[in-house]
């Protein structure tokens, strides 16, 4: 009997339930590329990091993607799709490293074992910048252009968190405990102004920019 009950409970927990999160700025505009993640609190067993390798490429003198969420304990590989050298580095406490990425060279993936923000730069192209946001949960994704993301999670209790480099609101104040037992829609409205959008850096970059700096 006890074994049967455990199986039933496990089956209920294993059912994926969609959680829709809609993030709006204080001006009611969608916030694109916000990392949304749900950290299990109780009732949901922690899931170990899968053996996953994410990709952060260098394309046309830019990092692609600009924001990369990954699960703690997973790895990131840094290919170089450009025909010129890059020198990727991070001074962030969550992961400090430097990688020289030569034309046609291949480097081993890097393991990210601490959650938090990893800000990347390139010592050759000073305008290049990207973020890896390391989360301690397998349930994460980025919002699309409409500021919405859908994440499938097992039924259970979670702490919903969001992150974006332009968000000035206190991240703790934006996090909330949620009990997910059915498809849910959660709206988050930012209180503070977003920091300036700097994506224009990517729109006027070309191969002739190399020699300028």
């Amino acid at each position, binding site marked *: 009997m006890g074994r049967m009950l455990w199986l039933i409970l496990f089956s209920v927990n294993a059912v994926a339930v969609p959680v829709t999160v809609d993030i709006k700025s204080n001006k009611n505009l969608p916030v694109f590329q916000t990392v949304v993640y749900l950290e299990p609190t109780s009732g949901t067993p922690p899931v170990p990091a899968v053996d996953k390798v994410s990709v952060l490429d260098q394309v046309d003198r830019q990092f692609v993607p600009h924001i990369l969420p990954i699960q703690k304990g997973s790895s990131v590989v840094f290919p170089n799709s450009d025909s010129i050298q890059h020198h990727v580095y991070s001074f962030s406490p969550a992961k400090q490293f430097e990688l*020289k990425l030569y034309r046609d060279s291949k480097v081993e993936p890097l393991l990210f074992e601490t959650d938090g923000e990893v800000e990347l730069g390139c010592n050759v192209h000073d305008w290049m910048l990207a973020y890896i946001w390391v989360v301690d949960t397998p349930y994460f994704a980025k919002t699309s252009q409409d500021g919405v993301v859908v994440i499938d999670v097992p039924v259970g209790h979670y702490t919903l968190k969001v992150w974006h480099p332009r968000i000035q609101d206190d991240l703790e104040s934006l996090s909330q405990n949620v009990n997910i037992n059915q498809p849910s829609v959660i709206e988050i409205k930012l209180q503070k102004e977003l920091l*300036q959008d700097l994506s224009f850096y990517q729109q*006027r970059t070309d191969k002739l920019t190399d020699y300028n700096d």
Partner: protein
Amino acid sequence: MARHDVSQCAIITHVLLSVIIGWSVTITAAANEIGGMAQIYLIDSDDLQSYQNQGTGILRHDENGVGIQQALLYANIDLTSDLTLDAVANYYPDGEQHLGFSQLALNYKPLSPDKIKFKGRVGFFYPRLSLENVDKGWLSPYTYTQSAINSWVGEEMRTLGLELSLYSPGRARRSPWSWEVTGGLFQGNDPLGTLISWRGFAMHDRQSLNNDRVQFAPYSTVIDPDFIWHPNYVEPFHELDQRWGFYLGAHLNYFNQSALRYYYYDNQADPLSVNRQRLYGWRTKFHSLSAQHKFTSQTRLISQWMSGSTVMGLSYVFVDFDAWYLMLSHTIAEHRISLRYDRFIVSEDDIFPTDPNSSDGYGLTLAWRYDITDKWQIGVEQHMNKNTAQNRVLLNLPIDANQHQTLLVTQFRW
């Protein structure tokens, strides 16, 4: 004294070559970025004799035919994480030095988490005045015949010394504005100013190499032992007085859309210094302001203005010079079309009116360049200029010249 004996550039070249060889045994091929570029031209040239052939024409070529426009190898060799050896070696079939370095420098750019960072370089390199010469080997990706300003920079100016910079990339500060302040100290550029004073501004893409000599016409007042007594050539990279020249510069960028660069340059040469070849020190000072704005990712406007003066001897020659250009460049798929207007003026105010040094002119250059593949490019350029040089009377030539040339260029890079 032979010119090879006195060139400090030859010394620095040997020192840096030793560094290359010393490090090359410890670095792997993966730590290098080595490549090259070659351009073959077919030209319908102007027939006014080129300054390179001791004429008064301000273009590089004066004969129809086929030849090598550019041939260069570049190397960026990582010596440590922060230190890179950057070199550009060129071959030119024309001119006096056919094989040599146009740039050879150690670049130090340490990684730093600071918002204001430091970098420096030492060696033989260009001060970064130009927003036109942004391709490998300081070439222009826009036109083959470069602006009058940067034709002069390429043939007569180089920093043999040290440059230190503070810079602040805007994106890391969450700002659209990036800035840099820079300063250089150098030796070995005392004859700078000779060419624009006697020949005037020229328009070409022939960069002087590390120990080069540039010819110009044998103006009687210049070569006369009883008058100025100077050879009708200059070897621009000599140190004659052991005085340090300097430059100060400031860069300001808005995103990657707009760029502004200001430089003040003073070679501090002693105008009374002279060597056994009778090459003089020319005290040359100028302001340079460069700007670029990209209207869209396809269309950009580039401009540069330079204003300065140079003096040699006891004001044997003293000229003010002013030059500017405006260039519009547009890409359609793999095609780039560039149109540039140049204006250049040299005005004399010296003690020898019988050695006339005033010159001026304008140029119009239209180029189409098509990237067939990543490696192959083909292009056509039409150039015309109208220039006046008062000292042509010394050679019984008309002072005015209208020059035209058409270039067809095939480029291969690897």
